[in-house]
Structure formats: C-alpha cells, structure tokens
C-alpha cells in the first residue's frame, strides 16, 4: 500500500516510525490551521479570502498523505470508478495546478493487488466507524455553541464543515501510514 519509491520529499517512508512522525506532523498542521482559522474568524467576519485559503488547504493538505493519485506516499485508491476525481490525473500534486512535486508514478503504483485492496477497504470501514462518532461529537459541539453563543454559529458552521472534510479525507491514509509494518530490506530492494 505504501508507494514503491518509499520517498516523500527525499525522505524514506519505508520505516513505520518515520511514517508515524509524518502523521503527527500532518495532524499538527491541521491543528495549527484550526487554531489560525478560529483566531482569524473570531476577529473578523467571514470573508472570501478566508474561504479561499481554507479551500486551498482543504484540497491540498490531504495530498501529502497520498491515496488519491500516484506519486503520493500511499498508492491511489483505484477501482472506485464513480468517484469523479479519481481518474482526472495520474500524478499527485501538492498545490492545485502545479506540476507534480511529491514523486513520480510507476506502473506498480497504479495497481492494487488483493492484499492492498483488502487493506484499503478495511481502513475505509474503520474510518467510517470512527467518523460516525466524530460527526456526533462535532454536531453536539455545534449545537452547544448555537445555544450558548448564537452569533458565532455562521463562522463555526463553515469551520466545522472544513474540519470534518479534512478528517474525512485524511483518516484512511492516516490509519494505513500508522499501522503498516516496516518494509524489510528485501521489501525495499530494487525489483530484479
């Protein structure tokens, strides 16, 4: 499930410890974004600039973990033909419209075998199960806010929607990166 090149910005992700550091850094980025967005929205009213920034983060941050197109740390989740974004491009990009900067696509990265397909489906089910609880807690938080501070509900609604989308788009990749075992030396060897 981990890309055969095992690299992200030149760093090897073959070891699980490295991947876990990446996951922690990624979620710290989301936490920082959350704090910055909340701080900004508390000081100002909702503006177009803030929405554009939020959308850019929403569409690009999950790209760091891969899973959508080849070239990311995780191979693309192929086989879901009805998903409109799946077949648009072959290679993962960090910023929309830019050239691929994470990695290059190899033939091995474009196909999932039965183990990888099974793993992909399992982590998506686990993510779905977790999302049920996360959604419930976010709704409870929003409802509480609406009761206590109704003037904040417009900003909070947008913020919660973006946060929910970020978690939803990142959770399966996070589970894979966190749990996949170390690639052994022979796993990492160049195909002969």
């Amino acid at each position, binding site marked *: 499930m*981990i890309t*055969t090149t095992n690299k992200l910005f030149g760093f090897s992700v073959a070891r699980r410890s490295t991947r876990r550091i990446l996951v922690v850094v990624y979620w710290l980025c989301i936490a920082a974004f959350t704090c910055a967005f909340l701080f900004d929205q508390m000081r100002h009213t909702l503006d177009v600039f803030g929405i554009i920034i939020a959308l850019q983060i929403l569409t690009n941050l999950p790209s760091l973990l891969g899973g959508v197109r080849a070239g990311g740390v995780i191979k693309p989740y192929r086989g879901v033909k009805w998903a409109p974004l799946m077949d648009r491009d072959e290679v993962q990009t960090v910023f929309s419209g830019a050239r691929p900067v994470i990695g290059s696509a190899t033939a*091995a990265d474009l*196909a*999932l*075998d*039965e*183990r*990888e397909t099974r793993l992909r489906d399992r982590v998506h089910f686990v993510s779905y199960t977790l999302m049920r609880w996360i959604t419930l807690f976010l709704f409870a938080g929003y409802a509480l806010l609406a009761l206590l501070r109704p003037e904040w509900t417009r900003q909070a609604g947008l913020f919660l929607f973006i946060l929910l989308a970020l978690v939803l788009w990142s959770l399966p990749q996070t589970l894979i990166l966190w749990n996949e*075992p170390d*690639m*052994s030396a*022979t*796993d990492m060897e160049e*195909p*002969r």
Partner: protein
Amino acid sequence: MSDNGIQSPGESGLYNRIAVLRAERGISRQALADAVGVNYQTIGFLERGDYGPSLKLAFQIGEYFGLPVEAIFSTKPFELLSQQVYGSRSTLKESA
C-alpha cells in the same frame, strides 16, 4: 516461514514454504510477484505470514511452483525438510 528460517504463522495464522521454495529455485520476489500478479511487497507479507492469501492466489502460487497448495501452505507447522529427507537419522543426530 519467516526470513530467518524459524517457522512462525504470523498474523495470518498460516505457515508457508514460499521463502524456502523461492530460495531453492533461485527465484526473486519480483519474478514470483509478476507470475502471480501481485506487488512484490505482498510476497514479503506472505512469506512472513503477515497476510493470508485468497484461495485464487494460493492456487496460483501452487501452480507456479508445480506443487499442491497443501505443500506450500498449512495451518500447522511444517515438518523440517531435513527430517523429511533423512527421517530418523536427522532426529537422532539432533537429540545426540
């Protein structure tokens, strides 16, 4: 079977002889992976017992090596090859 030769069923609960068969025939993981249509990393998972193959993949591996599935995969530890080849002589030497 794990890479160091010690039998372990791994997470799958299946013992296998893929690493031994591959070594004795000089076949790389990539060659086996190409032959059965999986990623070469998956062969590593199979050899370590971290992944239990589908029935189709198990039969494909059996066909590739020209062996029945039960000669490659088992729910019980395999008898050591030395014991299979040399029988009681091998056991006597070990116990001596």
